[in-house]
């Protein structure tokens, strides 16, 4: 990979996530609140990224396109944060280690720029990744 970094992913709440989940999950607001990855400025520089550009986040469990933003609760180089939601959960680890609790924090990921990619709507993202949809005529 030419331009990518390895990072440690954690997910969790933000107050904008809390606001967006109250009836806005089908709307643009949810994408703005949770379809993002908060990164340290030094990590953004390594990827030659400007805040607001889209990135692809991959882990052993999947991949997702989200918008990179400058962290508001930093510095935390090497650590990246995606607010809890369908975007984060494309890559979090389902392993519960016999506790019932998946591994939502501490997931090894790679982050790479993904120009021209679109961050999908939260509901659409889950539908396209879980349902076996029939081919629909356009």
């Amino acid at each position: 990979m030419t331009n990518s970094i390895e990072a440690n992913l954690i997910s969790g709440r933000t107050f904008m996530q809390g606001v967006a989940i109250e009836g806005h999950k089908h709307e643009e607001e949810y994408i703005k609140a949770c379809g993002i990855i908060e990164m340290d400025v030094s990590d953004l520089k390594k990827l030659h990224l400007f805040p607001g550009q889209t990135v692809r986040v991959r882990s052993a469990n999947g991949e997702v396109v989200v918008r990179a933003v400058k962290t508001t609760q930093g510095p935390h180089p090497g650590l990246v944060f995606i607010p809890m939601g369908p975007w984060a959960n494309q890559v979090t680890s389902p392993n519960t280690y016999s506790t019932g609790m998946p591994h939502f924090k501490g997931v090894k990921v790679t982050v790479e720029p993904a120009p021209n990619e679109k961050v999908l709507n939260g509901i659409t993202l889950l539908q396209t990744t879980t349902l076996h949809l029939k081919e629909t005529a356009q």
Partner: protein
Amino acid sequence: MIETKTETQVKPESLKIVTDVVCPFCGTLCDDIKVVLDGNRIVDTMNACIIGNEKFKSAQAGHRIMTPMEREEGTTEFAPVSYDYAIEKAAQILANAKRPLLYGWSSTSCEAQEVGNELAEVCGGVTDNTASVCHGPSIMAIQTVGAPCCTLGEVKNRADLIIYWGCNPIHAHPRHMSRYSIYPRGFFTERGFDDRTLVVVDPRPTDTAKQADIYVQVEQGRDYEVLDALRTATRGEDIPDVVGGVKKEQIKELAELAKTKKFGLLFFGMGVTQTTGKHRNIDMAISWVADMNKYTKFSLIPMRGHYNVTGAGQVMTWQSGFPFAMDFSRGHARYNPGETAANDMLQRHECDAAMVIASDPGAHFPVSSMKWYAQIPTIVLDPHYTPTTGISNIVIPSSIVGIEEEGTAYRMDNVPIRCRKVIDAPEGLLSDEEVLKRILNRVKEIKGLPAGTHH
């Protein structure tokens, strides 16, 4: 920012203020909200945080699900159906399943949870609440080593040392610090925050950490080591120079500081339950708190997320003996997280139908769990459109407890609070409790069981 769609012309004389309203969002369960009404319309709220305010206003912002729906197989198209049809379908799915999963419960009333647990028993299914992906590991640790506990009122009146470990109340419980822990003036804490010391332990310098007197930056996933070192240092033993990214001096300083305080309180969150170690982290935290009681008064409280996730655990426990991940498939209640929790069931394809109530696993479970959910017959009860409603077969809307229905909820410190009804629900919408009762009665009919409740 999210636009609030309530700014229309109102005449001041027609406004009414409902006081002492309980906010049905997070486990802080603030009970001092004022809601300004114009007839049956919510105009504004007072005292609520940004999230609580949105919870009340979004009830009438025009994006509710107004009728039950059924998804056409293999598409994302939904067709409106009647409540009678949706309830019949739901009952058929649950009655015909061998081991259905009933998941959620944490954003509805204890009264609805009570009916839901009977439904799980009648169906021979598994019922699990959101503690499973929240404080399930804390519950497991408490079952192992016990827990010193107290109410938030005691925290307000007595605590002079507050530790937030792996939690970020400014974002997740916005009024927690102002109502109970840091800022309020209490009986023995007359000077408010001047009488208290705030310690935050987190891998990120969070917005909560920025308010702290002492911030401990632990390396992500190393909470167990730091807690263990703290426990060792408290006993006066030597520890390595650096543990989990934290210097020996800082750990020792924290151990000594804690001993000088009159009443310490450890609040802990997802930073310790969702990371490496899980219940073992909490086990160690409780053990340290227990040790601290040799020197001073010390207690701990988990920062519960959903406003009634604590209640879900309470109701399950008084009905059948276990707080979450409860399996009725053998005819009696069984509990084994790691096997009977929602994610374990979905990962191993061990449920053949699922019903989700008052929560959104579509957004908050790893996608591989939801891939199995998408393949089995599913029912969801939710007032709003969510990723879960987007992939379920039957969608049943309901009224919102704490806004449109009364109901009991438990605060994070296990104090039950009666939520109020502020406005009438949109015409035709049923409550969670009503929908669940009708499904339960129909399932009993299909299975040839006597009607009525027997719990």
